[in-house]
């Protein structure tokens, strides 16, 4: 085999068809690339492509894992969910509302605060990497650890938060404080993630652009508006989208800290989907819920892309 490749390879490399360069492909058996791909594509097919189709198929059935009969019901699961007076429908829209509240409350903070943090850290000074490492640190912890720690700190009777703020708030039992707590914990946990992405984006903006603006007499604010922000646009689109997705999938914080309380007001959509499908085994309804949630998320992504595109067109 190696002899053969050598003999066939030599004229190939000297040949006129693809002279040199990074894109050149030496001769190989036609099935070689597929052999490289096969192990991953097998996983991809079984646990990514198949479940997308299978999930939709499930949502068209009354599907209980423990029952042999899984009757086809067409769009009935969806229709029931869109009927707010039905039991499933009212639970679902309460959960969708919770997801919506959390997303709307957390995403702006998770964009603005990390951007400010990144701007503070975007210089050359001693200790910068230490600060970066500290702010990022909570993100490497799992939500179980984060949930435990904050359940303790937010305890209405002995928690440090009430103690140091001089408050007497039941953070995990009243609706408004529960949202403040869940958003606050999430900001503490994930601020570092968005910060380091923004920081990397800031460092990709060519220094000369800032220098040129300074020569033109632009103030710091003008430079921020006309150099920094436009330079960050691709990063921002990515961060906004990823953050919306992450916030809309919030589960552990609510599961561990508020347990969906009070009265399921902080039980998010993914929480309800997991409970409905994987505890009560009503998998048809749960699948239908997940596709409705996914549709909302895709619309949200589309709006984000649209919003950022419009602004660049106007410039």
């Amino acid at each position, binding site marked *: *085999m*190696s002899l053969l*490749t*050598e003999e066939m*390879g030599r004229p190939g490399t000297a040949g006129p068809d693809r002279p*040199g360069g*990074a*894109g050149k*492909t*030496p001769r190989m058996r036609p099935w*070689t*690339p597929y052999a*490289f*791909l096969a*192990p*991953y594509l097998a996983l*991809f097919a079984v*646990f990514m492509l*198949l*479940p*997308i189709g299978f*999930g939709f198929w499930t949502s068209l059935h009354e599907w209980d*894992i423990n029952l042999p009969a899984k009757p086809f019901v067409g769009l009935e699961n969806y229709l029931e969910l869109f009927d707010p007076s039905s039991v499933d429908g009212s639970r679902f829209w309460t959960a969708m509302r919770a997801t919506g509240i959390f997303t709307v409350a957390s995403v702006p903070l998770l964009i603005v605060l990390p951007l400010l*943090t990144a701007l*503070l850290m975007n210089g050359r*000074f001693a*200790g910068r990497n230490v*600060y970066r490492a*500290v*702010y*990022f*640190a909570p993100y*490497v*912890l*799992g*939500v*179980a*650890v984060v*949930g*435990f*720690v904050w359940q*303790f700190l937010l*305890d209405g009777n002995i928690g440090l938060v009430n103690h140091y703020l001089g408050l007497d708030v039941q953070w995990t039992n009243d609706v408004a404080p529960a949202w403040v707590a869940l958003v606050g914990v999430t900001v*503490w946990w994930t601020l570092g993630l968005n910060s380091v*992405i923004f*920081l*990397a984006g800031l460092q*990709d903006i060519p220094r000369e652009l800032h220098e040129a603006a300074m020569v033109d007499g632009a103030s710091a604010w003008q430079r921020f508006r006309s150099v920094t922000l436009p330079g960050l646009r*691709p*990063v921002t689109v990515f961060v906004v989208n990823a953050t919306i997705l992450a916030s*809309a*999938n919030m589960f552990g914080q609510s599961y561990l800290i508020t347990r969906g309380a009070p009265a399921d007001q902080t039980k998010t959509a993914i929480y309800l*989907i997991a409970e409905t*499908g*994987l*505890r009560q085994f009503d998998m048809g309804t749960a*699948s239908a819920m997940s596709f409705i*949630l*996914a549709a909302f998320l*895709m619309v949200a992504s589309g709006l984000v892309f649209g919003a950022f595109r419009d602004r660049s067109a106007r410039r």
Partner: protein
Amino acid sequence: MTHDTRRLRRALLHLVLAVIAALYLSPLVYMFVTSFKTREAAGSTEPQWIPDPVSLDAYRELLGSADSPIMTWFLNSLAAATGHAALVLVTAAPAAYALARLRFRGRRTIFATVVATLFVPPVVLLIPNFLIVNELAWVDSLPAVIVPAAAGAFGVFFLRQFFITLPGELEEAAELDGCNRWQIFTVIALPLARPALATLFLLSFLTNWNDFLWPIFVLLSPESLTLPAGLGNFQSANSIRYDLLMAGAVIASLPVIGIYLVAQRWIIEGISRSGLKG
């Protein structure tokens, strides 16, 4: 700007950053401190930043408890995270190499399909993947938390970005020396990709170690749980034993913090850069 105002501004910047940093770490410090308190001290209404007396009671009770076998959970998590990260590397590296360096029919379509799934909200996979795992008789066993997540597109996407930057001359030289494609991949490309492979291994390990939603539903019996899943159950039963909860949290965070202290720079660069080149 004069020299003095510049120094003043720099000092102010450090002050702001240091105060935020202290506030940022204090919850973790308090978690650590509380895990060494007695049950009474942990439940006290007065904050106590240095445990008095220093007590190992919480760890002793946690490690000795029969219905929460925390060492078993720890080992399960270790096996799952290592197995998952290894599976990601073994499958994603050759696939990423092929998509970056080889020309073949269907390459664009395959890559586009894989990348498109980065935009599929993972929630739609939850129920059907449970059914598939159930069909494979993996429910309540480690393969359920090792294998399905390795189908994610991130690893392939991440490594492809790296393989694309390799200079073609090296491969040509190897080919002239009589290497076949597999040899070029293993002898030339993989050693060059070592930093990227190490970063992907660590990121996959951390993600799997911390995963919560999937294991609490797909693992059921106490002896098959991963650490976060076990602690989740444990919390419902011991919701006000903060000494125990903090000791559990410390045990769950130790490996992660250890890895972070050693490889912090790789982890941050890996994460912060992966989003940019899309």
